[in-house]
């Protein structure tokens, strides 16, 4: 993972309401946490920066690669206004945790409005890299709930 890649991720996050983000790769791990406004990187380890003395064509390939990395991140959004629940009941385990792999059609959370419980399914196969809303908090229509890295 190089700085360009992290920069892409930061750029991607900037346009969302993501407050916490974690991504693990064979060559490193990055965790980003922010309150409001610009994200600040609080922890990165071990980031491998590839030396890049070599000229343009190679550089371009690198850029394409990182663009692809951002493309691999998809959001699961809320189809309605309501309350976000991570588990079917307060006593049970959450449907999904950060780091879990999810399959298309797998339930990841419930959105409730007026006692209508909407079980939200993942629309893709992948790994949950971020959960954006806290249990029991209100969500808006179209608000991102999860970030999934496509498998």
């Amino acid at each position: 993972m190089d700085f360009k890649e992290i920069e892409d991720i930061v750029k991607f996050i900037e346009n969302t309401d993501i407050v916490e983000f974690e991504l693990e790769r064979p060559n490193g791990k990055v965790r980003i946490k922010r309150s409001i406004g610009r994200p600040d990187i609080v922890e990165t380890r071990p980031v491998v920066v590839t030396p890049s003395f070599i000229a343009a064509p190679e550089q371009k390939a690198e850029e394409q690669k990182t663009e692809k990395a951002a493309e691999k991140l998809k959001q699961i959004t809320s189809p309605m206004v309501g309350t976000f629940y991570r588990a079917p009941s307060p006593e049970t385990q959450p449907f999904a945790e950060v780091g879990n792999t999810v399959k298309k059609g797998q339930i990841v959370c419930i959105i409730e409005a007026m006692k209508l419980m909407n079980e939200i399914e993942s629309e893709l196969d992948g790994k949950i890299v971020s959960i954006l809303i806290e249990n029991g908090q209100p969500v808006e229509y179209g608000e991102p709930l999860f970030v999934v890295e496509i498998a």
Partner: protein
Amino acid sequence: MKVNKISIEEEIIRLLKKESHSFLSGQALSKTFGLSRTAIWKYINSIKEMGYSIAASPAKGYRLNLQNLPFTVLEISSNLKTAFIGKNISFYKEIDSTNEAAREFASKGAAEGFAVVADFQKKGKGRLGRRWESPAGVNIYTSIVLRPNIMPVFAPQLTLVAAVAVAETIARFLNNGSGYKPEPAVKWPNDILINSKKVAGILTEMNSEMDRINFVVIGVGVNVNMTKEMFSEGLEFIATSLKQEGGKEISRTAFIQLLYLNMEKWYAQYLKGGFEPVRKAWTSFFHMAGKTVKVQQTGKIMQGIAVGIDNDGALLLREKSGNIARILSGDVEM
């Protein structure tokens, strides 16, 4: 043509109903079906096992007691006046949860109006994993599959559509002509209370995409003939049944038939005429307006005066500051 066993039983029940004022002889039955009297006797026994009460006399034959008909698909289906709700029913003597079963059927393509009915639920459920007490032989537990062609954002209004249908059905059965007439009231969003005690609950579950509803399952539990002793410890103070409040045993078959009819009527009205007529009907059952209520949400309690519901069905709460809060989920308590 191959005649299956069920259809012979159904046919015998039909004939017994027609002749219920007197006995129907075994000989007449064996002649009608071209079967031996022993074979007829076996069918009668199997009909008894379905829950029908049949008097048998070797000299006179068989007579069906119409006063004590069982709660079965056959009974529900005869005289059901709906166009689609309950036209196809999956009935269970016992089941974990009718909502779970209905969702399973729906995800495999069950059509709009398909219903699951159970006599007993082992894991009857309420909101957020809560239990819905579901003893055998006395109550209604049913879940209906709907496939409305509306945006998922509007779907929560269906919970109020269901509340109106259930409240209207209950009102009809409590009105038995005697002087005392208890009235059903809705507690936002859709519990039905009589004299401040819960008599019916509705749990709605949806499967949707961003812009399309795959299906909605509306689960309805009504305490019909449940007695005080049947509630678990303490629950009798906050829950009740139609029989306890109205003083009369009510036919579950008649209740569910009218429930399906009212559900279909209000659902059609909602799809055609929008939410406003539903909002008006719902408000007529809402007796908490102007009263101080508490709303319990995850990790938070709000207090204020219940104003009513807005055009989406959200509860409006006037807080001390004068601010009107719009409530989308939570438990409302007086």
